[in-house]
């Protein structure tokens, strides 16, 4: 069905909302299973199949549907059961072996309270506490994640029933491109990829450049070794990102939009492509959308597993079918980007923020978070913590609350040592630094970084020297080898750390690390090269005792490094 004008769209919205209201009226069986990469890995597809069969055999007439990830990776596979006349109950870790018992309980009209994560209600129900009181959810502010685990990510109707594409319609019919940019500026949303540059200012520079055609690109490459928020976004609510890119195109007055997705994220690619196809089918994408005179076309391009392609100019070369290697700036990409034309590149999460900003206004958005870091932030946390997953918090939440509140603190038998911030581009925080607020600016003075919001907690079994080698080795391996300081400096750093690790440190090795880092920081072309030595410098600053033990005593306190205890001491003159 292709919609031809705004009235037809409004009619479609009314119909979608009516059907959504019917589904959620609470008078029928609805069983939803979260299907995303992390739940598939734990057998959610099998759970879905078994449920379908078991419900049929039990004679329960239920609508069995897939939804996206809800952020609680540790609770996968999860199943939401809406029974007639009862609030929806969410069950966790429903592997296929638990399906018969669950269906039996459903048939009896019972609730399996011991398997439940929570109930979608304000009051406890049959011994199941409200979902929103769960410590994982109580501290969250879900704006971007509002519909994760609620809508079917492969259904444009679900998205529209929940208010989707209202911002797109509002923008193209009721607002000028200048007004759109202005709202984004008022919101002060800063780039979610790590650099934190205000998106509105970038868009404005893109508008000012006098060259055509222009391009808008979403960076969904997500090659960082501890972040999975963008792919979950594309898996759980792809239309939200698509709508954001479309509004970006309108703001730049260009019909050319791209989403560049990391090639490894198969389900994210599949679902985003499907979203694009559905938007074309409905007439929300294409030429002269709903008779507005606005045209918009979105292409999907995929990467090939090179970390460097998350860097703006490298990504653009990759889009053009080249090797992804950054180039000298200026000209900046808003002046010369893809095919030497003005290009606005933002992170997936930044684009996901846009529809909300346009619907509710920039001021609504700016009221969330802190003064300089407005809005909410998706955070992923890994390591030996109780709960692993994706959360959305208002900017400014203390790191301690994040780790020990939402994510439940350490697993039994693990003692907290530190939390690595900023992926492979910054250093860790120690226990006594955890009261720092999580926002763009507060982590930096401590040697940390918000980055793209991926944090890794590590325990006492991790050695700071070994960890530094791991992070530095990552940056060595992923260096695109264009700039000499990065190409030669990173292997040199790895070599020095390696000899410290083996107990063969030479006098002055820590000074040598600093001296070797300087030219990499100062002379690399791209942002990734410039921060390549940061994890090592951060580890040395945060855990000098670990380095001293290796260098002076030939001992690895964590018992990880194969130190050579017989090596001669390094504490000679000159150290």
């Amino acid at each position, binding site marked *: 069905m292709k919609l031809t004008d705004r009235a037809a769209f409004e009619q479609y919205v009314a119909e979608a909302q009516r059907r959504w209201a019917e589904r959620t009226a609470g008078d029928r069986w609805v069983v939803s299973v979260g299907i995303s990469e992390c739940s598939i890995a734990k057998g959610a597809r099998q759970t879905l199949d078994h449920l379908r069969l078991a419900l049929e055999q039990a004679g329960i007439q239920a609508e069995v549907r897939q939804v996206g990830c809800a952020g609680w990776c540790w609770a996968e596979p999860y199943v939401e059961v809406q029974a007639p006349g009862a609030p929806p109950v969410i069950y966790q870790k429903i592997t296929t072996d638990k399906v018969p018992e669950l269906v039996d309980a459903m048939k009896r009209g019972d609730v399996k309270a011991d398997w439940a994560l929570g109930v979608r209600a304000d009051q406890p129900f049959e011994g199941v506490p409200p979902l929103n009181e769960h410590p994982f959810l109580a501290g969250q502010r879900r704006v971007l994640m509002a519909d994760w685990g609620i809508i079917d990510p492969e259904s444009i109707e679900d998205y529209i029933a929940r208010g989707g594409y209202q911002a797109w319609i509002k923008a193209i019919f009721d607002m000028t491109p200048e007004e759109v940019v202005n709202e984004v500026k008022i919101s002060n949303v800063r780039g979610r990829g790590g650099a934190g540059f205000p998106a509105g200012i970038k868009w404005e520079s893109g508008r000012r450049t006098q060259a055509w055609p222009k391009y808008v690109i979403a960076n969904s490459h997500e090659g960082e*070794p*501890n972040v999975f928020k963008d792919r979950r976004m594309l898996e759980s609510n792809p239309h939200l990102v698509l709508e954001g890119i479309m509004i970006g195109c309108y703001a730049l007055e260009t019909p050319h939009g791209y989403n560049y997705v990391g*090639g490894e994220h198969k389900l994210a690619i599949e679902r985003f492509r499907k979203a694009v196809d559905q938007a074309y089918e409905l007439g929300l994408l294409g030429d002269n959308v709903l008779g507005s005179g606005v045209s918009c076309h979105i292409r999907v391009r995929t990467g090939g*597993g*090179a970390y460097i392609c998350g860097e703006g100019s490298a990504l653009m070369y990759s889009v*053009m079918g080249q090797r992804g290697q950054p180039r000298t700036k200026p000209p900046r990409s808003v002046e010369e980007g893809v095919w030497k034309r003005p290009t606005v590149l933002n992170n997936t999460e930044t684009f996901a923020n846009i529809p909300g900003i346009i619907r509710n206004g920039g001021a609504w958005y700016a009221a969330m978070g802190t003064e300089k870091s407005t809005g909410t932030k998706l955070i992923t946390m890994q390591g030996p913590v109780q709960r692993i997953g994706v959360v959305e918090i208002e900017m400014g939440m203390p790191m301690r609350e994040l780790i020990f509140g939402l994510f439940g603190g350490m697993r039994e038998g693990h003692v907290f040592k530190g939390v*690595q911030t900023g992926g492979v581009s910054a250093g860790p925080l120690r226990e006594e630094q955890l009261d720092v607020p999580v926002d763009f600016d507060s982590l930096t003075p401590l040697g940390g970084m918000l980055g793209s919001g991926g944090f*890794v907690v590590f325990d006492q079994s991790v050695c700071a020297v070994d*960890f530094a080698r791991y992070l530095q080795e990552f940056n060595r391996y992923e260096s695109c080898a264009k700039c000499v300081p990065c190409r030669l400096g990173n292997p040199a750093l790895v070599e020095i750390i390696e000899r410290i690790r083996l107990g063969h440190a030479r006098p002055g090795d820590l000074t040598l690390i600093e001296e070797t880092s300087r030219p990499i920081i100062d002379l690399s072309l791209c942002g990734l090269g410039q921060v390549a030595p940061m994890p090592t410098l951060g580890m040395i600053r945060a855990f000098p005792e670990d380095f001293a033990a290796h260098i002076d005593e030939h001992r690895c306190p964590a018992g990880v490094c194969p130190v050579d205890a017989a090596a001669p001491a390094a504490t000679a003159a000159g150290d």
Partner: protein
Amino acid sequence: MAHATHTDGELDLEPLKRILERDFRYDTHQDAEELILGACQEAQNLYGWVPQPAAQAIADHLGVSVNRVYALLTFYADFRTEPPGKHFLLLCHGTACYVMGSQRLIDTLRDEYGITNGEVTRDGELTLQVVNGCLGVCDLAPVIQVDHHTYCGRLTPDRLRETLEALKRGEPLEERNETD
């Protein structure tokens, strides 16, 4: 994953050509260049690696030189220009897996199976690829993905050995994701 080859082991280019004809149409040379990377991925998905005739077919279809295709195949880590072994192991070595012990798995594979990143065991059974990025299933860390679809998580060297031996014996791996 079943890969498209003739029964006598010769490469069948027809499936790739069909995909190229269907999904990789273009109007301008500029559009064609944008499609090279995606076409390489299709070949990789189809054959498990990108054989030279497939690279040539991509080049011919898109009107670029085969050197241009190889420039990408040798730059981007996802592509293989040598045939893989019977089973494909994707070992996640992202930060979350590292702090949970993925280095010990890499050491086990090196010391006991004789393979490091990109290599195939002598018996042709196992290929190892180490992902520097992240498979995004960090709750299962440290984790490997076997034959493109099955995840085996929370591995120790012992459980890795068990898993690989089961794989060699041809046993199903579906139920190996105990997390607690």
